[in-house]
Structure formats: structure tokens, C-alpha cells
């Protein structure tokens, strides 16, 4: 049994553990993104058009409804799928069909994606179809940007603010 005065051995043991803890508390450095790259982050939360258009109820139809359930329009719940495209320098980097969420498919469609691109000047185009049309897009936005290394270009979407927002 050692004496309580075996201090050098204890000091060495504590020093080794402290060095171990101290080193791995911040090392080795983790490189999330290569140094010459920038990031484009696309986030979208948007409800598409309804699959069946709303129909205005007639006066007779309204009269048949209980007074607490009378509303001017009769709307289906299901929404259309969104079609989204993102291209950089004319080359598509993301194409997807986003189904509506919810058990009745009546919620907003959503996506959240990150893309790494080499830093430098790029032409970035985002397109979205949220209607029942079969070709073309309802929203399109184009940005020519000089992306710096490790820059994060956020692309958000807000229909009320005109569609895609580059931040």
C-alpha cells in the first residue's frame, strides 16, 4: 500500500488525465467544410395549391348547413406536390418533388438542403412550381454572386414576399 505521500506518482497520474482531457476538449480541429468551398443552404416551407379548387357555395347550399358550419367556400384539403429546382451556373444541383405533409396531405411541403460549391462567382437559379400546372414554374429567381470561402448563402422562400429570398 502506498503512503499518502506518494505525491510524485499521483501528480503524474493527474497530469496525464488532465492533459488527455485538455487536449480532447478542443482538438483535433474538425473541418466541416473544405477551405476553398462555400455553402448554399436551401430551406423551404410552403403549402401548394389545393388539388381541387375552392368552390363558392350557393345560397341554397348554405341554408342547408347548420348555422355554426356555414362558410362561403367549399375547399378540398389535399394540396399539390411542389416541384423545385436549384441550379448553379446552369447545372442543376437539386431537383425534387415535395409532397405535402400531414395525414390528409393538407400540410405545407418542406425541404432543407445544403450544397457545397467552390468559392467564386456563380449564377444561382431557384425555381418552384406550387400550382396544378404541369410545365413551367410559378416562382423563379436568379442571383449572380461572388461567393467567398466558407460563405453561407441562404435561400429561403416566402410567397408573401415574392418567392425566393437570397440572404
Amino acid at each position, binding site marked *: *500500500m*502506498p*503512503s*499518502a505521500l*506518494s505525491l*510524485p*506518482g*499521483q501528480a*503524474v*497520474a*493527474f*497530469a496525464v*488525465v*488532465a492533459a*488527455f*482531457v*485538455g487536449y*480532447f*476538449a*478542443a*482538438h483535433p*480541429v*474538425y*473541418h*466541416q*467544410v*473544405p*477551405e476553398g468551398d*462555400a*455553402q448554399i*443552404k436551401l*430551406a423551404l*416551407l410552403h403549402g401548394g395549391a389545393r388539388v381541387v379548387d375552392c368552390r363558392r357555395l350557393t345560397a341554397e347550399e348554405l341554408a342547408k348547413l347548420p348555422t355554426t358550419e356555414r362558410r362561403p367556400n367549399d375547399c378540398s384539403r389535399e394540396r399539390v406536390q411542389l416541384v423545385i429546382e436549384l441550379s448553379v451556373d446552369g447545372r442543376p444541383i437539386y431537383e425534387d418533388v415535395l409532397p405535402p*405533409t400531414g395525414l390528409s396531405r393538407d*400540410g*405545407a411541403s*418542406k425541404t*432543407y438542403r445544403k450544397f457545397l460549391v467552390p468559392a467564386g462567382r456563380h449564377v444561382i437559379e431557384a425555381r418552384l412550381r406550387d400550382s396544378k400546372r404541369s410545365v413551367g414554374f410559378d416562382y423563379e429567381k436568379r442571383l449572380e454572386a461572388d461567393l467567398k*470561402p*466558407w*460563405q*453561407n448563402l*441562404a435561400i*429561403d422562400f416566402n410567397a408573401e414576399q415574392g418567392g425566393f429570398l437570397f*440572404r
Partner: protein
Amino acid sequence: MSDRFPAITAPLRAIFDEAERGLSKAFPPQWNPLLNLGALGFFFYWIIVASGVYLFVFFGTGVNKAFDSVEYMTRDQWYAAGLMRSFHRYASDGLVVAMLVHLLREFSLDRYRGVRWFSGLTGVPVLMLVYVAGVSGYWLVWDKLAQYVAIVTTEWLDHLPLFGQPVARNFLSPDSLEDRFFTLMIFIHIAIPLIALIVLWLHLQRISRPRINPSRGLVIGAGLALIALSIVDPAVSQGRANLAEVPGAVGLDWFYLGAYPLLENLPGRATWSCAVAMLLVVAAAPWLPPLRRAVAAKVDLANCNGCTRCVSDCPYNAITMRPRSDGRPFEAEAVVDPGYCVACGICAGACPTSTPFRRMSDLVPGIDVPDRSIASIRADTEREAARLAEGTRVMIFACMNACAAEACRSDAVGVVSLSCSGKLPPAFIDYVVSRDLADGVIVAGCADNSCLNRRGGAWTTDRVERRRDPRLRERIPTERVKLVFAGRRGAAHLQAEVKAFAARLESLGPYRPVRDRKITSSQPGRADA
């Protein structure tokens, strides 16, 4: 010990044993960090709480206030709040290290299943809560590391269909983050450790006298190490978070954030499946086959006088006293809860009726473990004694969880195996020496402070050194008893001790009771025969 995964646990146990042996050369048992991981963990926890309270006084809750206040503490108040920040950081890391080593050690010792399921199961939420608390702490600094942690954490959470709006959208761009997020995070960072403390209390419910207070030596050693580390390599921020940039290179705290690169780069479905599967396996581990069901200790009321020694010595709170049910003139009787009992037999070692001198009736103590009864130990003792040849004879009572004492067996050395050194009633030592079954007795057990059954070694020492009931009778000279807590890797040490002990016994000559040493003619024994 019947392990579930011997291919894993055996080498792991060997590593722990060697580490314990190495550290025991420098540390007394009560100071040895490896033997006091629970106490060390609690020490770190209280350091975290104390330093956290201090830091909270200066912390600003808000997108800009958070980083600025932490910078103020780190730079302008480096001698006080800055030091506290480093304590907070490194004590948190120390807590994780102590917790993970404790987990591995308990796994290697197979101390998480059978009736120990409760401790194993309640340890899982503690682990999770400590990690949640730690991760939320990194978030609060709101530097580049915090940004990385916030984004990866929320992106990982968003893989679950729980949130209507992806939480990670809050970190899309600089103008999307609100101060309220920091209010939520500080609430989580304070509430979770408090919940962890409650679960820790539950974690310790099925053991008696848990070692949660570190010894003064351990406090001084670990405290000085924390101070030295905080001065040499103080915790600093990694630059203000900026959501317009990617935190391209971050110095991760690998103790808390080691899995983050995987969470970030592997598909969410894979990482969540993996995490849930691991959680289920760890939580279900105590019940996975092969099941281990120890036969619990049994009380024999005809021999139990309600003395409470077994209650006092049981390391697992498995015995309670209740009013007498058999009408005998005693106040209480012992009752064993089989759901708590690990069948270590320490209760039988504490029972005053566990005396091998009994001949008028069957040797049935007030409490005993059926799988290794006191009667069978007496039978083995007598059989071993009968085998010993003339000369200096040694009887070893060896814990089967400690080193292989069988290697010591010879014509001069008898070995009786026990489930724990604490199972041995001191009356057996008296019996062996006074009945001249051997010239001296060695009790061999797990290493100091490392008893597989928590208290066996400590109680044995106290009983033999006459500090705890049942005490070794005064008539047995202490020179004829040797306690060897060599541990599982100490076979060579035990053999050397046996050799030295035999030599000492030889020099002592034949046994004479302490109180009757002058009346040599009346003493039975080999020398008088």
C-alpha cells in the same frame, strides 16, 4: 463470475485490473480515482453547479449578449469568471470521462444485470441527460462552435417528424435567429442537470452507503488538476457566431461532440436508427440472455434474534427488519428482498450465529446463502485441514472473484473458496487456529476499495481488526491472521504473501491463546500433543 461476453469483458477487466494495480502504487485506496469513480463524478458535478451559478450571474441571454458576456468573462475577468468558465468546461469533461469509465468498468465486472438491473437501467437516462446538458452548454456561448452545434443538433432533430417547421430554419441566416432561443437554451441547461441529479438519486437507491463524497486527497488532487489545466489551457471561445458563414473548422470537444461529424455526414435515418438501437440495447442489457439469477439469501427465524448486523452490513439494501412474526421473544426479524439480493453472503458473514463451533445442532445460521452455505464452508475447511501435512500450515479463505488462490494449494496450504471475503464470519478464523486446523489464516479478497460486492473487504478488515461486529475473538493473536487484498491480478503477490506468512508462523511456534499464554500445559494443540 459468469460473464455474458467473456471475449470482451475478460480483456477489459484485465486492463482495469492492471490500471488499478498501477495506480494503487501511487494512491491509497480512498484516493485512487479509478476506485472512486462515483465520488469523482459527484465532485465534478458540484464543481459544475458552483461554477455554473457564478457564470450565470454574468451571462447575457440573447444573440449578441451571449457571446459578448462570455468574452467579457473570459478576457476582462480571466482571473475569476474566466477561471470559472474553464472549471465549468473541464469539470464537465471530467464528469463524462468518469461516467464512461464507470460504465465500462461496471460492464467489465458484469455488475449491471440480474438484481442489479435497477442501477444499470437508471444509469442510461443519467448518461443522456449529462450529454444534453453538456451540448446545451456549448450552444450558450454562441461562438462558431456553438453555431456548428446548434445547426447539426437541429438538423438532426428535424429528421424526426416532430416539428411542423424545421427547427434548423432558425439558423438559416443572421436575421432568422431570435433571443428567445437563448432563453430556452439556458432553461434547458439549468433544468436538465437538476433532473439528472434526481435520476442519480434513483440510481443509488439500491445500494447502501454509496460513495458519493470523495476523500480529501481525491478532492485536492482532482481540484489541483482542474486548476492547473484551467490556467495552462483556459477555455476560450472560437470567434463570434455568424450565420452568414459556415463554421468551416471548429475545435470540437470530443467528449461531448464526438458523434457530431457522424450526425452531420450520415443519413438521418441511419443515425437515428443507430442511436435508438444503441439506447434499447443498453437499456435492455440487464435482461438480455443468459439471465443471471442468484439464489437470494434466506432467513432462518429459528436462528435469527433480530440483531440487525446483516441489515447493517448488506451492501445492497436487500435486508430490512420487520416485527417478529413467529412469536419468539425478540423485537424484530430480518427479511430479505430477493429482488435486491446479489447473494454475496456478506450477511451470513455478519450473523453471530454463523459459527463453525456449533455442534449441538445443524450449522444453520440466522441468515445464509443457499448456493454456498456456512455449513458447506465449514465442511470444506475441515476437509482441507485434514489434507494438510505436518509442518507450518496455512488456511486461505479466498474470494472467488479475486485472484486464483487455488494456485497456492499445497500440502501445507489449504484453500477454501468464498463468494466474497465478507462472507467469512471471523469465528472461522478462531475455529481454524484454536482447533489447530492450521497455524494461521489468510483471508484473500479483491483489491482494497475494489470489492466486487462493494463492502466485503472493508467489513472483513473491520471485523478482523475488532472494530466491527462480529469481531475476531481476542484469544486469536493478530500475527496468525493475514489479510491479503491482492485483487484479480495478484496471484503472484498472494503466493509471496503466503510464503512470508508461513515463515512468520514458523517463527511464532505453536498457537497459544492470548489470554492463556502462561498456562501452556492446558493448551491443546500439535505442539502439546
